[in-house]
């Protein structure tokens, strides 16, 4: 009895050797990281003349040392008896350490930093001693926002995006219904229909910029079928003469935003379609049969029997569409850069333009715009998390 207790005690004791070795490695790494490896050291070592080229090797050396340090730290902790006695409580934190640490540094903490920037006037620079050059201005940036017509245009366009982007959900559903058959080759059709989502939004933006081009784009071609004819001019070249000139969708401040949203809908519909196709795959055949026995057909069947079962798919489709609408940036940047006359700005693009656009470095003002966008998004994020929380509670 006593023997086994002794044995138990021995098993849970701190492993002195492990702790010493890991501790020494850890200390050595920290020493290297903080005092030795600087860009100038690597510059000397590799003989780089310009600092910018020495940054990458410095980074890699630091990264390697940091990885060794983290490994040593984890090994260090597992050597102690407090860890061994209470493994189940400590282990998750060791598994989380790296990922959570990185996520905190790059995602969670910056959210609050941005919010604090929004109360300052700052151009993003430090003076030569590394001292922050901004000044604290309280709610000044928010007051400016209220008088900024561009801000209201952006807000209005964000709303327009939110509302019109939602079309992707029903359209995606109908394409999914159309494709939910078992004829030969349907798999290829399904994946080809999904295509637009896979390609970059920048490329989609370029494709549509070309398609909208009033001189030689896709739309002008359709236009010329109805309103134009090709004539030979006196030089013997073929030219197009139109009774009504084709519209310049992106050049007109009233139609440009609609043009970009239409382009954005293309990949978004594809995404919603694939969500619904997966959902339709899992619709229970029993319930369909039961519905048929009750005389439900067509629309009624869709509305009362199928759609309720597609609820999880609809939920995800709505969430990704809302997030996509509020995040719209790439297309605006490629298609109009906010123009003509700022008419296609949305909060996301306007913030970028104000903070790092040409000639302006309004970090504080940009952050205020970003904070407003974040607060709008927070409504949807909270709703999503609340739904997830309900699901989690149900699961237990």
């Amino acid at each position: 009895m006593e023997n086994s207790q002794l044995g138990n005690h021995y098993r849970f004791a701190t492993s002195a050797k492990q702790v010493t070795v890991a501790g020494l490695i850890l200390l050595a790494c920290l020493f290297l990281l903080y005092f030795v490896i600087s860009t100038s050291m690597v510059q000397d070592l590799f003989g780089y003349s310009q600092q910018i080229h020495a940054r990458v090797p410095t980074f890699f050396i630091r990264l390697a040392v940091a990885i060794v340090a983290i490994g040593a730290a984890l090994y260090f902790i597992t050597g102690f008896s407090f860890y061994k006695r209470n493994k189940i409580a400590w282990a998750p934190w060791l598994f989380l350490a790296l990922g959570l640490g990185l996520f905190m540094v790059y995602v969670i903490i910056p959210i609050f930093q941005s919010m604090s920037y929004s109360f300052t006037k700052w151009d993003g620079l430090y003076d030569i001693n590394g001292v922050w050059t901004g000044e604290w201005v309280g709610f000044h940036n928010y007051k400016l926002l209220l008088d900024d017509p561009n801000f209201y245009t952006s807000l209005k366009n964000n709303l327009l995006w939110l509302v019109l982007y939602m079309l992707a959900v029903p359209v995606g559903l109908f394409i999914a219904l159309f494709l939910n058959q078992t004829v030969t080759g349907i798999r290829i059709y399904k994946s080809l229909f999904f295509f637009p989502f896979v390609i970059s939004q920048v490329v989609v933006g370029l494709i549509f910029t070309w398609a909208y081009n009033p001189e030689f784009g896709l739309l002008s071609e359709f236009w010329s079928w109805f309103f134009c004819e090709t004539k030979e001019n006196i030089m013997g070249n073929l030219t197009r003469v139109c009774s009504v000139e084709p519209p310049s969708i992106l050049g007109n401040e009233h139609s440009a935003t609609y043009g970009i949203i239409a382009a954005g809908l293309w990949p978004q519909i594809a995404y919603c379609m694939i969500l619904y196709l997966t959902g339709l795959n899992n619709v229970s055949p029993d319930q369909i049969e039961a519905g048929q026995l009750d005389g439900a057909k067509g629309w009624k069947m869709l509305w009362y029997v199928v759609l309720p079962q597609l609820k999880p798919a609809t939920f995800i489709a709505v969430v990704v569409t809302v997030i996509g609408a509020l995040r719209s940036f790439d297309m605006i940047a490629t298609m109009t850069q906010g123009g003509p006359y700022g008419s296609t700005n949305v909060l996301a693009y306007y913030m970028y333009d104000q903070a790092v656009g040409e000639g302006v470095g309004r970090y504080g003002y940009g952050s205020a715009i970003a904070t407003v966008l974040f607060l709008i998004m927070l409504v949807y994020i909270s709703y999503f998390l609340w739904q997830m929380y309900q699901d989690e509670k149900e699961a237990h």
Partner: protein
Amino acid sequence: MFPKPIEQRSVGSRVAYNLALPIALLLWLLPLLAIFMTSIRPASDIATGNVFGLPSSFQLLQNYGEVFAKTNALRYLINTLLIAVPTMLMSVALACLTGYALAVYRFKMALPLFFLFVAGNFVPFQILMLPVVDLSVRMEVFNTVPGLVLFHAAFQTGFCTLFMRNFIKALPFELIESARLEGVSEFKIFWYLVLPLVKPAIAALCVLIFTFIWNDFFWATVLLQEDSSLPITVGVRTLNGEFVQQWHLVSAASLLAAVPPVFMFFLMQKHFIAGLTLGATKG
């Protein structure tokens, strides 16, 4: 199955359906087809308004060759790979660890931390932009590819953790419990028992993250400035400025940027769709 299978309908509607399919597809992909046709035309065709007809001469090799010869397109493509592949490896590896921690251990903070990852994944990029730029400058990784990779890896860890945690949660917990009773160390349970079981999730995440990062535009514009380190998405946008009105070249460059993700999608279709539709069938 809904709607009613077409085989059970009249011959007429079956024929109609089989005809409608290719027409619908053609209309759906019309912009893509048209841009492909444009990319193999000579410049003269575009000036005369030949959009749908056959090209007056096929210039596939000339146009694409010109894009490579006149611009840094090859460099951009390599850069994109240098950004996408390490990001993919890092975020998936980190998410295996965090997902395991959040799914297997029943500690009080498990759910709040999980929600933190999920919420962080949905925030607008703009709220992170300036602090991330500032942080990168202070860490001396601003305007370098590793700096961009580090950020992408951190950000994508949020989505990957969401995915991994739910996947591991669905594994039979008894397996892990019995291994613990055997006295297997926590890390060994993770390494030898759980990791082999989550291989499908790893595959799905790899394809998704690769595509996401390949298609990223915003962060590359913000964190990179030197032309020699730009990825293809930003590169193509710059080319658009250089090749004013030379749409045959712009379209060729755009398609070059689109090919790798499309290829990846076809190769790993099952995993890709499994990843994207996560949660669409639950409940």
